[in-house]
């Protein structure tokens, strides 16, 4: 179970309570501080010659690094190759890490730059047009968004994810989001980073993170709700104008 999901259960996210940690929090707990101190000590030891400790240092970020590159490149092989290159760069640049940000935030910033570099290389090959990675126009426009309308929702429990078709349905919907929405969903909802960390990695304001996340989630709701009907445990949902 992901940390994000564990938080959801712990915080009762299936009820009417907020789903995530406080959106502007900076994880400034004692536990976070001690984690940061431990990371700083590990980095100091690596820089002093205990390079084998680098393996343990990067284990917690292996998955977020791969996911970010997969979200950008949409190709597993490229994402894995780019992840290796990224983490080698992290090793070679470890002496530049100052501890102003969390280590994971710093690594994901490097990861994103690496991924964008791969996309630029692809764009130089005419047979592989660059998808519009950064499209600020998507931050503009009207705030109104009509979701998929329905009058009842029968919750799909976590156990539903045992079904490969459901997992494929969800991952496809995320991967098909416009890139600037996809990356904010990854950082906020998949990696469980807070708003400020997400803003730091993407180089945007916290307000833009919230706007993009809102649009991304509403796009997913609109796209997925009609499809998720097929995965309901029993019975049918009543759709707007179609009571059961």
């Amino acid at each position, binding site marked *: *179970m*992901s940390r994000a*999901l564990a938080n*959801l259960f712990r915080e009762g*996210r299936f009820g*009417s*309570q*907020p*789903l*995530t940690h406080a*959106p*502007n929090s900076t994880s400034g707990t004692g536990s976070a501080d001690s984690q940061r101190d431990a990371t700083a000590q590990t980095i100091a030891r690596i820089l002093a010659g205990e390079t*084998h400790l*680098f*393996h343990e240092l990067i*284990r917690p970020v*292996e998955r977020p690094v*791969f*996911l970010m590159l*997969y979200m950008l490149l949409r190709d*597993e092989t490229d994402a*894995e190759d780019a*992840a*290796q290159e990224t983490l*080698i760069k992290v*090793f*070679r640049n470890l002496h530049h890490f100052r501890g102003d940000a969390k280590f994971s935030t710093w690594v994901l910033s490097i990861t994103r730059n690496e991924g964008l570099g791969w996309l630029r290389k692809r764009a130089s090959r005419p047979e592989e047009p660059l998808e519009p990675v950064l499209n600020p126009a998507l931050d503009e426009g009207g*705030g*109104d*968004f*009509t*979701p*998929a*309308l*329905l*009058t*009842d*929702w029968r*919750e*799909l429990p976590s156990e*539903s*994810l045992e079904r490969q078709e*459901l*997992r494929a349905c*969800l*991952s496809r919907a*995320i991967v098909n989001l416009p890139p600037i929405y996809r990356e904010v*969903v990854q950082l906020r*909802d*998949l990696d469980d980073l807070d708003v400020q960390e997400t803003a730091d990695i993407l180089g945007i304001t916290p307000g833009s993170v*919230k706007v993009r*996340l*809102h649009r991304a*989630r*509403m796009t*997913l*709701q609109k796209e*997925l*709700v009609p499809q*998720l009907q097929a995965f309901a445990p029993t019975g049918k949902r009543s759709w707007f104008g179609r009571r059961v």
Partner: protein
Amino acid sequence: MNIDCKHVWRHISAYIDGDVDARLRAEIDRHLEHCEICSAVMDSTRNVVVLIADERVFEIPAGYSERLHRRLDAVLAEEGASG
């Protein structure tokens, strides 16, 4: 103050994250009590957010970690020796 459905839709993501002030939350809660559409939209959005957070949705390729650490081992050995 009574808010309409569109007003609720504009704040769904923030509501889910607990990022609305107490007054707006109370207004949305009042609306949800009598609006089955917004209530279902809120529940479905929350359900989608919960489901996509599950690590099973995106599976990392088998052997990814092993290959990564093998490659790092080679780099660490080479650069540790030269450094």
